[in-house]
């Protein structure tokens, strides 16, 4: 990890959405303004050529972070700098072009993310034309064929329409399109959640091979911890808009510190270890419209004390990870949660 430059850094990123009732209703009924706290003070950096994963349950803000990095969503506070340039500094579309060429995105739903009226060749060629990388003609067609073959499709597929492909093949087309502008960084928002497991394996293997061959950096958004364990070197765990734990992926997955991370790991059904004892996460994620005071996780946390209910924990470095938890800082967590003792993760060992 060390020695490689940072390609992306997210500093103190906060995104809030106004969910207030309309003005007239506020005046007439005295209803208050309401704000969705989607992302609060998120900090992390991604090393070139590595995979950084954001994990968390639905509504925790992971996709909002991704959208902000992609420039689709403006931050309320804080910022994102990509290859050393603050992305908020782009005043014109033209100025943002190199950043857009270098940063591409793969979406979850391969059915919704491809234009059904365009042939695959045109879909894959578009980024190259937009960024002036190739003029329409034989050279462009050659490049399209090359990309399709890179992702495991054939040259003839350029003439077909998206509906002629299966979900896995469509995700391959999405990847070919993302690669077309020769980017350095790809945001993968739940790239395999809509796919069957045997197809998921094909896509994950393809993504790993491309990363090795092209030196790509990935930001992987996923709720599937096993997928994250397979792909990522570093990882951030989000809960209600905040990063509760961040650091080396192996470390966090083998020795999780934050109670939420521990319980989340315990919750994952694993066909390869069905009988490990597990502690259940109680309750559900509260609404981001009115996050609990203090540590947002305290209503579900088995180790919460009075301090957790009023004071927000700030991240502190523990081992190879940053953890935002009073209990960890006060060292009053049991070393193992009940049941995690036999659930120790054995890593490495290529078979």
């Amino acid at each position, binding site marked *: 990890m060390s020695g490689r430059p940072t390609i992306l850094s997210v500093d103190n990123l906060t995104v809030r959405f106004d969910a207030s009732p309309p003005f007239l209703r506020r005046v007439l009924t005295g209803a208050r303004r309401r704000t969705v706290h989607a992302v609060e003070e998120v900090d992390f950096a991604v090393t070139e050529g590595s995979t950084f994963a954001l994990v968390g349950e639905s509504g925790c803000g992971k996709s909002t972070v991704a959208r902000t990095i992609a420039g689709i969503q403006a931050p309320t506070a804080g910022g994102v700098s990509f290859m050393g340039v603050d992305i908020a500094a782009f005043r014109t579309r033209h100025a943002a072009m190199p950043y857009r060429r270098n940063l591409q995105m793969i979406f979850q739903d391969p059915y919704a993310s491809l234009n059904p009226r365009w042939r695959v060749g045109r879909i894959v060629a578009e980024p190259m034309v937009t960024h002036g990388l190739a003029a329409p003609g034989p050279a462009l067609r050659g490049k399209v064929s090359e990309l399709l073959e890179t992702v495991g499709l054939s040259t003839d597929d350029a003439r077909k329409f998206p509906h002629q492909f299966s979900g896995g093949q469509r995700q391959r087309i999405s990847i070919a399109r993302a690669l077309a502008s020769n980017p350095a960084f790809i945001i993968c928002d739940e790239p395999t959640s809509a796919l069957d497991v045997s*197809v998921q*394996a*094909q896509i994950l293997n393809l993504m790993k091979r491309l990363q090795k061959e092209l030196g790509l950096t990935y930001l992987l958004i996923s709720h599937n911890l096993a997928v994250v364990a397979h792909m990522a070197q570093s990882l951030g765990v989000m809960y209600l808009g905040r990063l509760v734990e961040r650091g080396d992926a192996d470390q966090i997955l083998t020795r999780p510190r934050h109670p939420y991370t521990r319980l989340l790991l315990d919750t994952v059904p694993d*066909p390869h270890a069905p009988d490990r004892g597990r502690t*259940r*996460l109680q309750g*559900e994620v509260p609404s981001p419209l009115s996050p609990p005071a203090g540590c947002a996780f305290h209503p579900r946390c088995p180790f919460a004390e009075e301090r957790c209910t009023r004071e927000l924990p700030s991240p502190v470095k523990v081992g190879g990870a940053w953890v935002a938890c009073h209990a960890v800082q006060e060292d009053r967590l049991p070393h193992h949660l009940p049941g995690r003792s036999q659930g120790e*993760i054995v890593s490495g060992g290529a078979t």
Partner: protein
Amino acid sequence: MSALLSVENLRVEIAARDRRLTAIDDISFTIGAGEILGVVGESGAGKSVTGTAILGLLEPPAALAGGRIAFAGRRIDTLDEESMRRLRGKEIAAVFQDPLTSLDPLMTVGEQLVETMLTHLPIKRKEAFARAEDLLRMVGLPAPRERLQAYPHALSGGMRQRVVLALAFCCNPRLIIADEPTTALDVSVQAQILDVLRRMCRENGTAVMLVTHDMGVIAEATDRVAVMYAGRLAEIGPTRALVEEASHPYTRGLMASIPSLTRRRDTLVQIPGAMPRPDAPVSGCAFHPRCPSAEARCRSERPPAFAVEASQVACWLADPARRSVSA
């Protein structure tokens, strides 16, 4: 143990413009009283169609084309609509993926539970309300008395699915068909719902057919598992045996392709290609084009189910004649 549900040589066909496509191609299995049978497979393998056929809810263009379904010793695939309706909801209940489709948005949670009970049970309205509250408590809904007055839109996804479970259990069914009951939920809520399902089944002796694409859910929640592939049963047997050492090459590939938290490897095993679609069926064993061990016979002849210990495996590799030769 006599079977509570027995499905024999079930065939379901879908009428297309000029021909009939086979969605379910001759499958047989049983579910014992109180047993949780998992049905797993990729999308399009026929898992949900099987559940729908048992519930008698197949809609055109899909229709039964052969075989028989017996419930508690009585044939149910030939029942008329009225008798089937009386059976459904009382003896056989259903839980679907999206709780909002199973709940009436215009009725409170309490009214829905009470209405279902009054339809099927000899019970007074007051008793029904008391039982509704008990049920909500049993499925782990916080503040059950207040929730009786709540409308479905006021509940979160996890709470709605708990209400659906309460509805499924309210008439003490003997069998529940649960089709991807936790797929729309977050992992932490999924675990809670599976716990409730399992606990309620143990306490009430209810059998479950749990349809899912998630091998993790299968491994944690089921007693036996049926693996479906292209409308056929590839393998059926005790969950433990199947998860630890599957016999069918498809099941083995499927297990190896799942990324694991406990067994990490550099590259995942991948099954090349994709499952054949009903409009382009494959000769012989439906898995042969993707199978690493396929032989000439696999391409021409469909394998019957061979017994391998407590499992049934539809694969020529499991043919005892062949195994004795190679041994």
